[in-house]
């Protein structure tokens, strides 16, 4: 019964197989991006369709080849509380250092700390010190809402930035600092403010993820002198589309972001925050979700983009399972590749029963209420 359902879905997706390279049914940890799929791609949230193969999209990027690495969502606690997140961050760092050739740069994609504690942020900065290639940082909500980014900015500088690298315009966005004020009226302590922000399924912090008018204007200006057919990579903590707002798997002004990016034909967004394998296309923008080093999040019961090949179910007894980092490359053959460095053999689900979305249609969930007044 279940097997049949799986087969049916598999049958329905044949048009997306990469016939030339014969990758039917062969699933690896790589995400090859090629433009051939852009036409007719689904936009926004849609029901997940369990595609038993890798995403393949060709990108005529006209850029020199280079590679870079991504680490994010380490959620470090002070070492006195637990060291498991430290161990996993160290493992990712050591693997980045072992990359041959070395990556051109590292993006640290936010949520370095768990509760914005200066001890946690210092610990993270210290660990990352041993990576000697150029590093760029964007903040996550867990880094920010204790002191509203004071410590983070002292360590890492401005939360949004831009630079050009080998023919690609690269933008780092701050999607976390513009949360509407939920704390002043309730006279919350800094710790209480941080606590609500750190509760993914809480109801108090509301739709905090956003880019903001000022940063949207900055983004437009940054792109204004860039040719429309040249590649752009946008790094953000949150996904730049509406995925599952109840867990803030979005930015609330994603439509404005898309409006700015729309004229550019080669945009790739790489984001953290969702702690899981994700892939989506909105217009000409491709969006790739990164793994956390700390822990993985189950897929929500709805809204998983149809273009996502879901990751496997995770073994709760092994805290190195379902997590990791990413190697990304812009190749001379004009492709952007993403390779999930998940610490296990199979990254993508081969059958429904082993899929992280396998139970999705069978779960109806309700928001919590104990944190409401």
């Amino acid at each position, binding site marked *: 019964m279940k097997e049949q359902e799986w087969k049916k879905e598999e049958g329905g997706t044949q048009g997306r197989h990469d016939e030339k390279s014969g990758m039917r049914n062969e699933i690896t940890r790589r995400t090859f991006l090629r433009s051939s799929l852009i036409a007719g791609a689904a936009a926004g949230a849609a029901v997940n369709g369990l595609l038993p193969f890798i995403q393949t999209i060709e990108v005529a990027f006209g850029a020199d080849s280079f590679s870079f690495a991504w680490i994010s969502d380490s959620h470090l*606690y002070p070492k006195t509380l*637990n060291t498991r997140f430290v161990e996993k961050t160290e493992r990712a760092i050591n693997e980045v250092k072992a990359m041959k050739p070395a990556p051109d740069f590292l993006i640290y994609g936010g949520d370095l700390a768990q509760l914005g504690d200066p001890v946690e942020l210092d610990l993270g900065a210290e660990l990352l010190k041993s990576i000697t290639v150029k590093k760029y940082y964007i903040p996550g909500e867990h880094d920010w809402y204790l002191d509203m980014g004071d410590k983070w900015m002292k360590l890492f500088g401005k939360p949004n930035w831009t630079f050009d690298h080998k023919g690609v315009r690269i933008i780092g966005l701050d999607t976390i600092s513009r949360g509407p004020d939920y704390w002043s009226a309730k006279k919350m302590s800094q710790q209480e403010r941080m606590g609500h922000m750190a509760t993914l399924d809480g109801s108090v912090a509301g739709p905090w993820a956003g880019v903001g008018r000022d940063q949207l204007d900055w983004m437009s200006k940054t792109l204004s002198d860039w040719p429309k057919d040249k590649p752009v990579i946008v790094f953000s903590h949150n996904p730049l589309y509406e995925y599952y707002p109840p867990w803030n798997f979005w930015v609330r002004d994603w439509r404005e972001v898309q409006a700015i990016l729309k004229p550019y034909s080669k945009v790739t967004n790489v984001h953290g925050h969702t702690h899981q394998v994700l892939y989506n296309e909105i217009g000409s923008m491709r969006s790739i979700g990164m793994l956390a080093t700390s*822990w993985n999040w189950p897929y*929500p019961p709805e809204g998983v983009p149809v273009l996502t090949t879901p990751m496997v179910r995770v*073994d709760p007894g092994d805290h190195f399972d379902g997590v990791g980092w990413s190697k990304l490359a812009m190749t001379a053959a004009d492709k952007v590749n993403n390779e999930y460095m998940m610490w296990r053999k199979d990254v993508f689900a081969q059958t429904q029963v082993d899929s992280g979305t396998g*139970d999705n249609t069978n*779960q*109806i969930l309700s928001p*919590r209420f*104990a944190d409401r007044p």
Partner: protein
Amino acid sequence: MKRTLLYLAVPALCLALFILLSATPGMAHKAKHAPEQLKAFDDVFMEQVRIGDLLFHGDAATEKKMKTKLSRTGMACAMCHPFAVDNHPHEFPKFQEQINKFSTLRDMINWCIEKPNEGEKLDPDSDAMKALEAYIYWSNRGSKLDPGRH
């Protein structure tokens, strides 16, 4: 079978019935239910859901009150199971690979306390266990019963 029913019954409701029974011996189920009574039953249930929600989210004060130590890693259940996702209360009882035995939801709650959380297992009949169970069921209400599903 009997067990399944037991786990589906809301434990708090039994408690309320019991209280009612002792107040008016022999009257339960013989007189029509007044709206206030139904509300009282619901209040008892939702109070357990609330306590379970707080425990599930690692609320320190509630843990102290219930004398539980559900985690030693700093991680609460909700950090891996937001909205009690992937708790699948509607799939129990079932064979559970991790424990290598036919298991109930309570078995699996205890397994997650012991393994990923490195906390202290609960007495399966304790108030804290029942509250966690109430929260997990309530959060997943509307999901289709599918016992045995992996």
